[in-house]
């Protein structure tokens, strides 16, 4: 069976490992064998976003060393994939050999739903859920990668599930990495709006493809609307039985 290399974001590794487990489960269900390169740490986004390019470069080189020979790399995070695809080549532009390797790796990295639908041509993961769900279009998934129909196809294939529309579903939830803690007034205001739109949609569950968004929206729900749930697409499809830990 074809092997696919798992790229597990640090947020998932440290705080939301069940998303990683669900990713493994889904890839197996779709007929590929996930392998996990030990030694993977972080894509480098935190450093990149804060302007620490020298440090981000180190993360980039480490990643390329580790994943450089893999034909396919799949991650349950759009922002991490964007980091590798869009920023690694830019970061390493002044080192020709690394630049070439970065371009190679950039071609081979995929966000999970993108890989399942566009490459493996799978939309029905065999899941079932009775109820209404809404989908939050994470910024890096939607605008960074142009991925939007894929998650929705996967959600719509879940038996018993109705995908309802949500106001301003493509608006930023206010995470933005360090932005959320450095500009809490603005960030809180944004996540408040996002949650209100979710509540107004009438959905029982909010699905998304970005661990950062999940920590943010989930964190706000936990504090203010514990009865409402948010879940990563991978968990929803794999039906681990547990949503975002409370």
């Amino acid at each position, binding site marked *: 069976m074809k092997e696919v290399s798992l790229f597990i974001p640090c947020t998932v590794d440290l705080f939301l490992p069940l998303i990683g487990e669900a990713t493994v489960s889904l890839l197996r269900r779709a007929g590929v064998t996930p392998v996990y390169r030990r030694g993977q740490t972080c894509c480098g986004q935190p*450093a990149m976003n804060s302007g620490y390019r*020298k440090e981000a470069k180190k993360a980039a080189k480490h990643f390329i060393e580790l994943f450089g020979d893999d034909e396919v790399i799949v991650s349950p995070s759009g922002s991490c994939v964007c980091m590798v695809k869009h920023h690694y080549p830019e970061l390493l532009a002044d080192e020709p050999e690394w630049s070439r390797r970065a371009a190679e790796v950039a071609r081979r990295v995929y966000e999970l739903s993108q890989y399942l639908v566009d490459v493996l041509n799978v939309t029905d993961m065999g899941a079932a859920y009775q109820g209404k769900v809404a989908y939050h279009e994470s*910024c890096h998934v939607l605008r960074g990668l142009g991925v939007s129909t894929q998650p929705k196809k996967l959600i719509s294939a879940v038996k018993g599930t109705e995908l309802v529309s949500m106001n301003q579903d493509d608006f930023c939830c206010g995470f933005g990495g360090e932005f959320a803690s450095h*500009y809490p007034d*603005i*960030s809180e205001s944004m996540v408040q709006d996002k949650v209100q739109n979710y509540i107004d949609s009438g959905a029982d569950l909010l699905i998304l493809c970005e661990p950062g968004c999940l920590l943010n929206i989930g964190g706000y729900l936990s504090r203010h609307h514990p009865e409402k749930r948010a879940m990563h697409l991978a968990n929803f499809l794999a039906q681990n039985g547990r949503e975002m*830990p409370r």
Partner: protein
Amino acid sequence: MKISTEKFTELAKKEVEKARARPFLKMVPHSLYQKRKAGLATLPDAAAAQAYGAAIRSEAINRLPELLEEFEKKATANGAKVFWARTAKEAREYIVNLASERGAKFVIKGKSMVTEEIGLNEALSDHGIEPWEADLGEFIIQQMHRPPFHIVGPAINVPVEEIRDLFMAKGIMKEPTLDPVALGWAARRFLREKFHRAEFGVTGVNMAVAETGTIINLENEGNIRFAKSSPRTQVSVMTLEKVVPTMKDAMHLIRLLSRNCSGQNISAYVSMDSGPKQDGEIDGPEELIIVIVDNGRSGIYQDPKARDALRCIRCAACLNICPVYRQIGGYAYGWVYSGPMGQVLMPLLLGLDKTQDIYRACSLCGACKSVCPAGIDHPALFLYYRSLDVSTDHSFKGKRRPWREALFFKAWSMAVQRFWIWDTGISVTRPFINKNSENGVIHNMKGAFGGWFRKRDLPPMAEKTFHEKWEEIKKTR
């Protein structure tokens, strides 16, 4: 105008809390955004039109010196006078002296952000020449001594009650009313006198066409046309980057600017000046002076990445869609320019040290980039400025970052490339983080990410991280 870019966080906090602004902020930017979508849909291929606009602006910026020279040559041949100003000071001194020499007691003004940037109004007042902002929104904020809330609609957040009170207090109307139409007409009556008697008009410039030496202004109200018709002297102020290669390019940008701004096919008035009035014309300026202002832009131009910020055509599409702008409005940005376009431009004009929050208060959502008709990549520029700031680049006036942050990333960079450090780091920090956990949730934690916990929880660090669990997971089916 006073610069308060360093007060961003404090001002943003106030604005978020202000109940008054928020219902407005919920409605108007969104309504403009919807209008924009509808306006662009009237074009056979909106995406191609936007891409074409980006190509025009990219070419204009990349051919800047050559186009400026051509513009000057043609404008001068048309009979206009061109004055170049290196600094804000040179520009405003020139205009004030000219107005003085012409014996102007007052000046009527069209909306022009560069005249705000150079502090023209204060300079005129200081010399006993009264500047009258005639664009309704600018007029209102001028009377209220307020900064602009939005680059296109500077008073758009001011409630009608406050406008009524202002107009009554200033004698602009005699009968109180809350009807926006009646308020507008009161302002019309009041300012009409100024248009009638004006001898010195000051306008901005939307586009300076190199091919023909023509300056172009877009407006809906008519005050710019008045400033170009009634007075004997017209001064039109532009920054370097307003230049556009050809008239056909200008027509395309007119279509894009009008739609991106407010969903209109075209503004009510587009006036195109190629020199002063000619013999026999009974109105129009006897002298047309075009002031070309640098004020730091030739410096910005040295950097091929940063110069893309100069492509901006001031449509405000980025403001209307920006989730940060929609939470805080224009005041928090602290100067003439707000929203994402302000965030890419002000750090270059004022220095990275004076605008630390301006390019950091962004979640990098990319909505701005997705709507920009000039093809500006705002998020890429923010990342660029942040990296220049960290490396304390002198030409951009980067600042030294807090030592804790620098240290954190030093440590982080060691951990990301050496798995054993990463792994050890996790084992060591986990108990400290998780001791804050109550019933499987962290409600509060002191330290660097303290801001998070005001309104949000966090899950505890997993007892077994994914990499610690992998051997187990591998074995399952």
